């Protein structure tokens, strides 16, 4: 009886600690695997790959003017990524606190952050990002003295100008959509006015209905009536 009372708690503790250890290691392994397989926040860095591919093309050799343009594109993409992360950080943190986004998206985001700017853990990835900016600066100075001083400024303006142009491109689309809505609304109003006076005027209803399609139910009904 005495022996048992000593062994029992020992066994209990060993089993408990063992289970916890196994669970913990399994959990961590799974989590690490999951983190590793997460899609990177940004897609492939095309402009970097294009620049380096062109730089190494021999037959025929790519002229400097194209290489310079390609380097500007590469710097632009680097800056765009940094700006995106800075802007996304605040709003993402808020969303996470409110529970609107899952931990998965958050992990992806922090990985991306570490890739480009100073993060906490991923020192290797930080080194990659710093190296990328340094590489671009070095390439720039290779083309023209002191270009490194202004290439990122130019890149920043290009990023901003691209955003402004994208917004400007939406204007015509929005105007067209609003115009459709407004014409329909006016037609509907005039039809209602006419409808009160001459309800059996099927031709008018059909022609305006097919253009506006504001009250599809009514129009199909009238159309059917006309056909028979």
């Amino acid at each position: 009886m005495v022996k048992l009372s000593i062994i029992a708690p020992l066994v209990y503790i060993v089993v408990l600690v063992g289970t916890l250890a196994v669970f913990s290691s399994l959990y961590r392994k799974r989590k690490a695997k999951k983190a590793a397989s997460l899609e990177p926040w940004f897609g492939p860095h095309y402009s970097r790959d294009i620049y380096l591919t062109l730089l190494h093309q021999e037959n025929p050799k790519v002229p400097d003017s194209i290489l310079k343009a390609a380097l500007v594109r590469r710097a632009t993409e680097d800056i765009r990524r940094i700006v995106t992360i800075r802007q996304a950080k605040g709003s993402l943190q808020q969303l996470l606190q409110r529970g609107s986004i899952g931990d998965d998206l958050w992990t992806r985001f922090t990985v991306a952050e570490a890739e480009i700017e100073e993060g906490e853990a991923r020192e290797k990835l930080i080194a990659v990002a710093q190296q990328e900016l340094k590489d671009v600066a070095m390439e720039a100075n290779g083309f023209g003295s002191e270009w490194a001083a202004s290439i990122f400024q130019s890149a920043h303006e290009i990023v901003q100008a691209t955003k402004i142009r994208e917004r400007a491109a939406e204007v015509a689309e929005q105007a067209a959509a609003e115009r459709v809505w407004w014409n329909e609304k006016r037609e509907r109003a005039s039809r209602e006015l006419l409808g009160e006076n001459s309800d059996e005027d099927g031709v008018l209803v059909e022609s305006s209905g097919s253009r506006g399609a504001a009250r599809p139910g009514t129009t199909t009904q009238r159309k059917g009536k006309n056909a028979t």
Partner: protein
Amino acid sequence: MAQSTDVFVVVPIEMDPTTKAIQALPSSNDPLLARELEALNNLHRTLKSVPEITNGIPPPPTSVGPKRSALIERMRQTGNSAFKKKNYSEAVDLYTHAITMALTRPPWEPSALLRDELHQLYANRAQAHIGINNWPEALADVNASIDLKRVGNPKAHWRKGKCLKEMGRHEEAKEALEFGLEFGNDTELAHMLKEVNETLSKRQ
């Protein structure tokens, strides 16, 4: 960007020997790559088309070609005088022209300048549209103007309220005017908000 710093992916591209344009090999059909190549070729063409650039390097965004700015400003002034003469559709055309000129500025020029020109031109064009009761077009223009500059742009906020009110969207007009008033008090904005609120309370 998780890739290492000293390796890169060779992308399937080649240079057209005559046009010097970079194009994807026929075997590739990656739309993102095609888009990036188009952007690259456009940038290269723009860099070549500016006579002041002799070394193929975009100048730092501290200086701008004065010619384009002067042209845009003149076009805007012509639009303004057409507007004053109540030639509204002519004014719309002139402002549209000025907008196109601003949008074709070289992309490396200071973006603050572009933003400034555009928010003004869109607000002006909206006013010309309002002159001929083109409420939907005017609304699209002021929306852009406000997106480009929210603070210190009370005219655009007022015009947005006006368009929505005229189209019978009083709730939206109320929201737009209240939003505009967040960026500073303005008697005309407050006046229209009062009108809209009166219409809304009558309805209930």
